């Protein structure tokens, strides 16, 4: 095989998440204790053996929690998690105590990684203390497939309709409102640039939560991950003053069949609308 003269690019996005993690595991070399399911495995999105790029890990509180530390591990090449030499703690993040409310957003925490990993290497996480409600970790990246970059070649916008009813689930189950859809065929991926939120009348304060679903039924918690949330202020209808536009930056390539849903923390009177704006990446 000749030396490679072209840069490599991801062409199959991969987004994977842990289940809700509540139980302590204080290992620092990844070899002992119970680990939750693999978040991200190189090649899982494409079936290729070219390796993957891991951009970042998003960490979200799923309720009221004590302070702890989150740890992100890399296991190389389908290695054995009981063998220290196959595992490496990539990073730690301080996770503060959190108090869940239905009118205020909890912060998004991000662990930037920006690393290329070889085929079959996988990421998993642990927390240092047993806590109350739990944390969820979501990894964003993609599989290397091609020697050309991936671009959107057709615009796509989806919108939710008016949302008024609360859904206080912490796991993305219950009644959800879809705001973005990745088709299951004839696309490589979709790109969701941002979600625009608008009030359509008088509302009490609430919080909007944005969930990514992997295409499985939303009633199964592990098919969903809380990606971000934003506080929605109390609104009083005014026919002479424009109400606020609330954009949520997403900047995500989503695999086939992945969908994005929204929920409200508190029921409101007039409602809010959500519009996803982005595009579609079609096969060559």
């Amino acid at each position, binding site marked *: 095989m000749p030396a490679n003269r072209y840069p490599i690019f991801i062409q199959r996005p991969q987004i994977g998440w842990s289940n809700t993690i509540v139980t302590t595991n204080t290992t*620092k*070399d990844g070899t002992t204790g119970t680990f939750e399911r693999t978040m991200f495995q190189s090649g899982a999105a494409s079936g290729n053996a070219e390796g993957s790029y891991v951009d970042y890990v998003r960490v979200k509180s799923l309720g009221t929690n004590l302070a702890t*530390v989150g740890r992100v591990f890399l296991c190389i090449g389908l290695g054995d998690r009981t063998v220290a030499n196959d595992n490496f703690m990539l990073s730690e993040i*301080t996770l503060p105590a959190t108090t869940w409310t239905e009118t205020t957003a909890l912060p998004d925490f991000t662990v930037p990684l920006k690393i290329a990993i070889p085929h079959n290497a996988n990421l998993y996480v642990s927390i240092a203390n047993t806590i109350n409600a739990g944390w969820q970790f979501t990894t964003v990246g993609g599989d*290397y497939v091609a020697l050309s970059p991936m671009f959107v070649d057709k615009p796509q916008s989806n919108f939710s309709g008016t949302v008024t009813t609360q859904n206080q689930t912490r796991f993305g189950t219950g009644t959800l409102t879809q705001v973005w859809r990745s088709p299951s065929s004839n696309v490589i991926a979709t790109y969701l640039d941002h979600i625009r939120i608008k009030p359509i009348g008088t509302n009490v304060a609430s919080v909007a939560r944005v969930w990514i679903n992997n295409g499985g039924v939303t009633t199964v918690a592990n098919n969903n991950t809380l990606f971000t949330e934003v506080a929605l202020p109390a609104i009083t209808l005014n026919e002479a003053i424009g109400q606020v536009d609330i954009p949520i930056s997403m900047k995500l390539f989503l695999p086939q069949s992945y969908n994005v849903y929204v929920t409200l923390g508190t029921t409101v009177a007039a409602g809010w609308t959500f519009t996803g704006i982005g595009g579609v990446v079609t096969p060559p």
Partner: protein
Amino acid sequence: MTSSPLFIRTPKVGFSNVITASNTTKTLAAGTLNRVLFESNTAYGSYLDHIRARAVGTNVASVARIFINNGGVTTDAANNSMISEITLPPTSNGTFEQSAQPDIILPLKMVLNPGWNVHVLLGTAVAAGWNFGAFGGDY
């Protein structure tokens, strides 16, 4: 002469084992070495982007020394060169494990000849240890 650039084709990651023992050699030619941190591809060589150092518990201060070896025996100092050092601060996970330890990243952004290797040593022995990951790719 080539008129087109060379790019990595396959990502490569290497880990040290968890290192607790010291080896104060400045040439890599003496003492006990840890397992190779990063092995360059034997066909076209490799690119080493950065090394990430992670404490795995409570440690006294130390220094990590990074060496390259040209594929020859490490006991011959002429085959090795120290290319960088990282000051490693004392670390503690505390009683309650509520604060993260820092990621210590050494950017290298260097090419490695085919068959060359990268090693890491500690200057002072520590209790819990440090683990090192090297991130790059094969050409």
